[in-house]
């Protein structure tokens, strides 16, 4: 499967089948910090990904903040 990562943008390939949770573990990514989008659909951690899938792992953490109070996004 083709896996698209962001920030910085790059592509890697992985062999399926593999669960979303296992893929994130292999990539050392925290499930709380990303959305996993398969073929333009969000998938949960227990979903299984196959060789033919195109997967985007989208980071969700954003924002730089001044000390004390946040500036939002």
């Amino acid at each position, binding site marked *: 499967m083709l896996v698209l990562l*962001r*920030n910085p943008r790059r592509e890697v390939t992985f062999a399926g089948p593999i669960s979303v949770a296992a893929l994130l573990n292999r990539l050392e990514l*925290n*499930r*709380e*910090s*990303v*959305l996993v*989008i398969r073929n333009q659909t*969000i*998938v*949960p*951690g*227990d*979903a299984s990904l196959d060789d033919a899938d195109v997967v985007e792992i*989208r*980071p*969700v*953490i*954003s*924002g*730089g*903040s*001044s*000390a*004390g*109070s*946040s*500036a*939002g*996004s």
Partner: protein
Amino acid sequence: MIDVRRHNANFCVEHFLRLCRDQMAKAVDEFAMFGRDDRVLVAVSGGKDSLALWDMLVEAGYKADGLCIGLGIGDYSDASSGYARRFAQERRLTLRYVDLREEYGYDIPTGARAARRAPCATCGLTKRHLFDKAAVDGGYDVVATGHNLDDEAAVLLGNVLRWNREYLGRQRPVLPGGHGFPRKVKPLVRLAERETAAYCVLRGIDYIVEECPMAAGNKHLGYKGALDAIESSSPGTKHAFYFGFLQRGAERFDGDGAAESAMLTACTTCGSPTTAGVCAFCRLVERASAATPVQLRPGR
């Protein structure tokens, strides 16, 4: 299908969107943020949180206009503003726009260097001043920002690590207006970043995914990473931390945040409330507008 571990549940699209809207409505009601007759000015950046907020407010029937500030952070600001403009155009919403360099003679990279402050601090000062001004000048009842649960938990962590009592005294979902300041509210505080991102994806809202190039490595993002690590093994921690503070800790710092209000006067340059003769924003403008513009590398 999206899993929300802190709710110990998977949601279909319909019910996830309902969850998001209900959580926003709960925050608005619980903290008496604004009413149906209030005019809301939404601080819009083109990012997921501000666009999700604006979308939810409009869907819920509130009178909500947007304000976007062109911060002059190279290609990033152009792209970010573009998402905001397209969102507003597609929905026929009113988006006000302030170009920092055109109207005030500086941009964030130049301002940060001239003031010898971190870019995020310069950005925060600039945005707070301009949102307040736009709200007051435009007759808006409230400024709404897209701060979410992750934002507030990270700020709280930073404030606790350093025992910033004054900031802890002001860290609320609602900052009441008065003394020349508009009321400021954070309707998304019950939603995590992952949830606002998912909301945008499911609603087909295009937003800027790339991170601000000037934010890389800052402490705030570090605090978020630390909290996410804890949340991963103990879902619900961020919620418990932040809302536990509001319920059981915030009142202990109320006096620390209020002291400054008693010393406010009008800035001799712009008339905005300040504890100094000339406000921090005007001092920044004076220094930054005279400075040689910082040239960012292409692609930033």
